[in-house]
């Protein structure tokens, strides 16, 4: 068994989980919702094993390092953290339906990684030979995953307000009755960002510390750094919007969606469209 086979199983499992969640949306059958969650958890376990196995394989090849050193490995880790956070929210707050809006992000990541990317294990170039790599990547991606979850929740919020209109005292029936109440969605959005914001902050700080250690400059306004700061500004705006009259609810939800779009641009767009010091995705 190789890690690559296990990653294929993971991708397939997330696909099934998403389909079951969509069926859950359509049918409103409780057991389908439960199945969707459990299938996603099974995928999470397989993926955890696969990441561990890939780590071991790199040592067997004599180039041992944590599997977080290139675009492929980072996308896989991103998917893993998204499902991990979904599991946390599912178990803690029992709003299973969120899975229908969050699992697709993880599936998208895995599918793109498995189908469109070079999956080979590469040795670390000198710039990446540092423990800071691990701290930096883990904190950043946990933060990104929390923002992915918040974006899914905000999408639900925006759909629900669009369907029910601004008058939430007359909740619509049908599909919308499956969605948590607006107030709960707003609260969950805030909670997810409360997890993500300190992690992103820590991610930026560990990145700065690493840059200072490797190059002697903690901040050089390189596009990746700047975009991470932009993301940070957007979520800081979100946090203050919530306590400002006239900005609660819909506008805050939009800020959360924009924040995640900026996150994705920071992660992928910067490498694919702009140039800079970061090495992910160069080829």
């Amino acid at each position, binding site marked *: 068994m190789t890690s690559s086979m296990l990653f294929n199983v993971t991708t397939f499992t997330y696909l099934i989980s998403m389909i079951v969640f969509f069926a859950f949306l359509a049918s409103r059958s409780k057991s389908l919702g439960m199945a969707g969650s459990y299938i996603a958890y099974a995928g999470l376990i397989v993926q955890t094993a696969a990441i561990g196995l890939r780590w071991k394989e790199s040592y067997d090849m004599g*180039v041992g390092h944590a599997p977080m050193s290139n675009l492929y490995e980072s996308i896989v880790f991103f998917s893993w953290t998204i499902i991990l956070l979904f599991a946390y929210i599912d178990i803690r707050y029992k709003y299973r339906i969120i899975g229908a809006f969050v699992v697709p992000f993880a599936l998208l990541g895995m599918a793109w990684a498995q189908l469109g990317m070079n999956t080979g294990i*590469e*040795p670390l*170039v*000198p*710039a990446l*030979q*540092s423990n*800071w790599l691990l701290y930096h990547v883990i904190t950043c991606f946990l933060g990104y995953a929390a923002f992915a979850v918040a974006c899914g929740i905000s999408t639900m919020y925006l759909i629900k307000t669009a369907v029910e209109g601004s008058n939430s005292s007359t909740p619509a029936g049908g599909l919308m009755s499956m969605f948590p109440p607006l107030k709960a969605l707003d609260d969950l959005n805030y909670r997810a960002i*409360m997890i993500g*914001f*300190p992690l992103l*902050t*820590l991610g930026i*700080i560990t990145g*700065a*510390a690493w840059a*200072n*250690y*490797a*190059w*002697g*400059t*903690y*901040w050089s*306004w390189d*596009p990746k750094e*700047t*975009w991470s*700061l*932009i993301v940070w*500004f*957007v979520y*800081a*705006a979100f946090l*203050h*919007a919530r*306590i*400002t009259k006239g*900005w609660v609810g819909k506008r805050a939800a939009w800020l959360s969606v924009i924040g995640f779009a*900026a996150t994705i641009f920071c992660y992928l767009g*910067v490498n694919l469209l*702009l140039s800079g010091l970061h090495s992910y995705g160069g080829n």
Partner: protein
Amino acid sequence: MNSVPLQISYHGLEITLANTERSFITKVWDFFCSLKLTLFLLISLSLTSIIGTVLPQGALPPQYVAEISATKLQIYTKLGFFDMYHSWWFIALLYVFSLNLVSCSIKRLPHVFKFVSEPTLVLGEGGRNSFPLKKELAFSGSIDKAKERLSEFLGKEFSAPVVTEHNGEYHLFAQKAAWSRLGVYVVHFSILVIFVGAIIGSLVGYKGFVAIVEGTSVNSFENKNGQQMPLGFEVLCEKFTASFYDTGAPKEFKSILTVLENGKPVPGYSQVKVIVNQPMTYKGITFYQSSYGQASEGGMHYVTVASRNGGTPEKITVQEGVPVTLKDGTIFKLLEATQEVRQFAPGFSGPAARIEVTRKGAAPQIFIAFKDFPEVNAQRGDALIFGYEGSNAKQYTGLQVAKDPGVWVVWLGCTLMIVGLCIAFFMSHKRVWVVVSKGQAHMYGNASKNQAAFQMQFEEISEKFQHLKI
């Protein structure tokens, strides 16, 4: 203060000086304290920051200048877009941001301190109705006994209460982690600390570069403006080595450095290994491995030439780029050489040179001669087989030089920010009131964060509360 609108007539226009000077200042103050301004600033900072990630910053690449129209170039330059993070308007935004932060804190902190140090001990009707968490208990004992029992109970289950008598009722107030309300202000303060650290760095810190040829030492470096600055000591490069993986990807760039004071090695700073991600710091100045290369001056290369018919190979010493004529009239020239060819030719390793060979009356041929692959060398050339034996040219190591005394202030600010965020988000100011009146008591609760978790704690306490025998 009562201000009467002042009306004056000016060229037939009625101008109303509605408010006095004092309220103008109040207006400015309110403007700088407002959260709307905060949102405006955060969104403006994000939007404008994008410019610098799209346009090149600093020295413009010539092909960019060639592509862009002259007017655009002029406008962008005027607006500071090519060094936008140091442009006057971006810095101004950061100043207003700091001002907003400071005034907001000045306005709110006294209230928060008061809220924390002088809590509401007596819960009025308004408070009683506004808290969603409440529980009721009936008892038959005396009110004084109930007060004693409930105080003791609260102290054991939650935190020791302050008891106040008011209108024949006893108000028991207990709270936890009141200071967590200050977490937000720690976060805001930390931003200013980071700014201070950055300003210190830009005023007293510096950055530069130095190249040291193996076996030689330097006592100065080149700063960003291209000037030589003294280090105050000497740095000797003992050796530089680059190693590569089989794929040709770089594995390690390593300089062995020794610090010299008055020409003598400093104890503890002799033969220090400096690699990427492992710098050396001496007297506050840090040296980072950043590049390397072949020192061009005076290097000699050794090339072997053997006849295909056998015989002892001839060893020739050449300089890069200087043609040499052999006995049979063949001219050859060493174009370039490397001591490690792996990065250019995966599958090969060791020293190699690119040479150009021109046989008498034939077109020039260019090929690579290796040191460690004689059989490959034998496949190239016609009557003569060329090999490469390496060179006595030295390598130089390129080191980034930096000093930043403000960096510790920045890390202090970062630490404060993380601590502040954790307090602001994950700690909660919890308050419980118990109002004891004749024959009955009411318990109320409120938490600043995570109401759901507090509700569970409240339910648990009130469960026990109702089983109290008074």
